[in-house]
């Protein structure tokens, strides 16, 4: 499939996410901490539209040096895309599912050229 010009980079930086279809192939493009990432819009769990879900920061357990737990917190550095069908979470930077890392999203090639976001699937 040919490369596809998606939009000006500034537009995606502002939106943070854009999900597109190119000849029936659906891809979610994300901008996070200065980098672009692109993943196919199919959850490896049951095939849900993973990129159309909400984004949540990774949830962590707070454990002290004595192994005692003190509730949970959001990790502000780690953002996940969450499949809206069943809640399966994936790290937007790596595409790996959180926790046991059982699954991996299928990557798509994305880059910026002359200020335009280009997707090559």
């Amino acid at each position, binding site marked *: 499939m040919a490369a*596809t*010009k998606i939009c000006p980079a500034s537009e995606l930086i502002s939106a943070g996410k854009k999900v597109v279809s190119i000849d029936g192939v659906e891809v979610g493009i994300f901008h996070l901490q200065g980098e672009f990432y692109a993943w196919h819009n199919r959850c490896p769990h049951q095939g849900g*539209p993973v990129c159309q*879900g909400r984004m949540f920061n990774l949830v962590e357990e707070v454990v002290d040096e004595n192994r005692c737990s003190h509730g949970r917190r959001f990790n502000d550095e780690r953002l996940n895309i969450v499949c809206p069908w069943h809640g399966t*979470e994936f790290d937007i930077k790596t595409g790996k599912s959180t926790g046991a890392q059982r699954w991996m999203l299928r990557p798509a090639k994305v880059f910026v050229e002359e200020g335009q976001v280009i997707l090559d699937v």
Partner: protein
Amino acid sequence: MNIAERKFALPEELPVQEVSTYTDTRQLLARAKREAVKKGYSDWLICDMDAHHVETVSWKEIVEYIEDPVLRFQAQLYHNERHGGTAYGLNGDFGLRYQDVGGRITHQADRRETVKNTKVHRDVVLTRRAMDGLAVDYMVVFPANMLHLGLHPQQEMEVLLARAYNRWMVEKLLSADPGIVTLVYLPFNTPEAACKIVEEYADKKGVIGFCITSVRHKPVHSNEYMRLYRMIEETGKPVAFHAAYHWQDPSLATVPTFLGMHALGFVWCNMVHMTNWILSGIPEKFPKLKSIWVESGLAWIPALMQRLDDQYLMRQSEAPLLKRMPSDYMRENCWYTSQPMERTNMKALQLTLEMINADTQLLYASDWPHFDFDTPGTIFDLPFLSEQAKRNILGLNAAKLFGLDPRRPAGVEDLD
């Protein structure tokens, strides 16, 4: 060549960038529908043995069907005058509704999508949209919050609300679409009232069986239920034990997460009832009575089969009605719904399906719109099943069990 001179494929921005509680079911399930087309489900009969609507959204309508004039009047006033109140007369867990995983699964939280069609009830349209998305020909629709009604502190209230709900269900949902069917709610804590429901509803359009909600502390083998089982057996229609959770159960008092509570609760209630059902010899007393065990998944069944068989061989005098091993009854006299089907160990799942004789005893269920719903693909994609076994599980077993026409019912195309 610079970017201005090159030719690019044209991207189309998806109309739903982020799913919310307002997203149309058709858009949310668009990928499932495309999968159905790709896999050729139009040639398959697909029966969804367990889906839900949210009856509390319509509770103000449902209380109009309460037969007791005093309680009906009170319920009407309650819903007319109270803001922020929950459904009149319903017990339950109020704010402990964490199924949507903290906002991650919006269709579990609510479905506020637009419905234009005013000729039928809104839930009919929502159900049709789900059937369209999942390529389902028949969808068994159950209530949701009423799954806790077996724990109601007022025994009579279970009867009154069950009777009101059943009448409303038949009038508003079942009459509107030949593909929407149900197993009517039995107020099991009051056996004579449950018998009356069987008498009244056995022949109603769209009523394909009877439902006992499993969260309750009633011994299913008690003599007070023998008349009920005989009546159900005579109708030829199955009885379902529909599982649910009950976080206030003392056995779950130490469990701090919905994850843990849900994993155990939905199984435990049916394990207890199944144990009593089998060891007390119900399948011997009522050999034609067909029982379905709903929404407990499947992994519990091999475990219980082995536990009961093991103990039975040492203590046969405590189960003198049995002529076969407990697992034989569980395999031959009982049916099971698939969802939520544990699929993390395919070897274990394959053995489970062999142990329950899935070719004849397993019924596909989606549990739509709940957070752990399964698409038909969960069955279709199993690598170790024959095509005939898949066809049986996805629809033909249900068609045979319920006496459904194995052809797709004449559809209603209006999904707006």
